[in-house]
């Protein structure tokens, strides 16, 4: 356990030294602030657009962090040959993979927390400067605590994406890993269509195959409750809990897969 924590700490420190997450956070903060200016064009819909844009910025920049750091976690060590030095220490390959994963997960949580705080600060400013008559038309309060639930699900989705990136990075190049991860992310958002394939296709084997792919690929659509939260529509707690449980199970599968590949990998 201690070895995993040490590797995770090293990954987190390296990401702090690496300025990429900082620039992304700065950019996200800038986008959120810019959204205030954009909202002047929206015919009174500034709060809705601010929330949509803020949550989307958090999701997009989080995704970039997850993919572009995730794909380098293992491959960079292998390329630099530093993996030999690390594995010569009393550290198993599975501990190495888990430490890498939790280190990046910690980086994500810290980055997204900063973005969320910045997001709430902009919402607070708009809330304080908006006329009460206009506020009455908002479907949900500016500082709606349910926004945090949307962010929690974004974090869960990104942790799943990180696990996908880590899995691919155990056996392929960074570029290929990035393409594969983004491909799975896109497919994960189209996944719901596969479930209803039999409604549009009469060929039963193909429909069954589509159904199998639906269950095999990660289903990322349920992680997106941004529209419900922005419109003040209640999201059942059971749905959130099941989505988080799904993420935990799927992440475990991917980590076990990554460990299995990495344990059998020959470094020459």
């Amino acid at each position: 356990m201690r070895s995993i924590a040490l590797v995770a700490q090293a990954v987190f420190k390296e990401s702090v030294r690496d300025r990429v997450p900082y620039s992304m956070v700065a950019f996200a903060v800038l986008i959120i602030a810019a959204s205030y200016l954009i909202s002047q064009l929206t015919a009174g819909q500034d709060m809705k657009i601010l929330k949509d844009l803020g949550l989307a910025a958090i999701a997009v920049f989080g995704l970039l962090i997850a993919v572009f750091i995730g794909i380098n976690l293992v491959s960079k060590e292998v390329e630099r040959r530093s993996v030999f030095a690390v594995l010569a220490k009393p550290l198993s390959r599975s501990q190495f993979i888990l430490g890498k994963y939790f280190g990046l997960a910690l980086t994500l949580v810290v980055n997204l927390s900063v973005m969320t705080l910045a997001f709430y600060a902009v919402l607070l400013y708009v809330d304080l400067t908006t006329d009460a008559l206009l506020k009455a038309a908002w479907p949900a309060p500016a500082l709606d605590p349910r926004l945090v639930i949307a962010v929690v699900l974004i974090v869960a989705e990104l942790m799943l994406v990180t696990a996908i990136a880590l899995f691919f990075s155990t056996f392929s190049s960074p570029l290929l890993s990035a393409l594969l991860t983004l491909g799975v992310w896109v497919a994960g958002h189209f996944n719901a269509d596969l479930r209803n394939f039999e409604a549009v296709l009469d060929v039963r084997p193909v429909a069954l195959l589509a159904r199998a792919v639906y269950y095999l690929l990660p289903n990322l659509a349920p992680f997106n409750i941004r529209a419900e939260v922005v419109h003040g529509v209640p999201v059942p707690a059971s749905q959130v809990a099941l989505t988080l449980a799904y993420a935990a199970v799927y992440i475990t599968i991917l980590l076990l897969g990554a460990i299995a590949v990495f344990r059998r990998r020959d470094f020459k």
Partner: protein
Amino acid sequence: MKPRNRGLIVAVMLLFAASVGIQAVRDRDRVPFEPPGGMLWIQSGTAMKRMALGFDTLVADLYWIRAVVYYGGQRLRDRSERSYELLYPMLDLVTTLDPRFKVAYRFGAIFLTEGYPDGPGRPDQAIALLENGLRRDGERWEYMHDIGFIYYWWLRDYTKAAEWFERGGRAPGGPPWLAPLAATTLAQGGDRQSSRTMWRQLFENADSDWIRSSAERRLLQLDAMDALDQLNVIAARYAAREGRVAQSWPALVQGERLRGIPLDPAGVPYVINPVTGRVGLAEDSPLWPLPEEPQALRPVPEPPS
């Protein structure tokens, strides 16, 4: 010793200033090509929803801003050059991407119905949009009220208007004033007081500044119409007494002992037609032109006993 970059920094600054200058000179003579009526490459909301990859509401926001800017931009153009043909496809796209975007449906109800040159004059499209809202966003009384309102104000179909008001009154959260409004509409549709009630409700329940100011303008126009009715009675009285129409305000003010030249609710003086002697709204008033008033229902004659 590290090389000093001062020269390079100065060069970059100078070149940047030059690029700004070149751009300013180029923009002076360049009129960017704009396709007549604008362009909307993707009009299928379903296709756009797939392309949005989970960011549907954000894409809806972008199209919403585009719709608002498009409508506002057309209103700023010369009257003869205005075209609103993309307004409905844009609003349809917005509401397909974000089916709960309430203000987009209601914005459509107000601005798609406005007659040319202030809008496309398409109450049918406004009703279609609101009916989509009822299908996609549940039985909202606001959409039912707006459909009833379009039948009342623009289509003058008081039976259908009353049906929708009644349906809105029965919808979840429907306000208690909708059922009496349905009864009044059926009994005396077209009277100014009912119009005023509806515009006031729109004003008070508006989701956006644009809708609120549009409703406010209509309310001021109704006030102006009330004032004009009174002023024309005075002008007629003057004509009957003097045997000629009042050709200017000084004559009418003096003859009828008015306190001064009356102003419309926007603060612009009313004008007198020197030929007919009728008082009207000045063309430079922000309230001009006044709406064509829905025709009041004629009282049903009593059946012979």
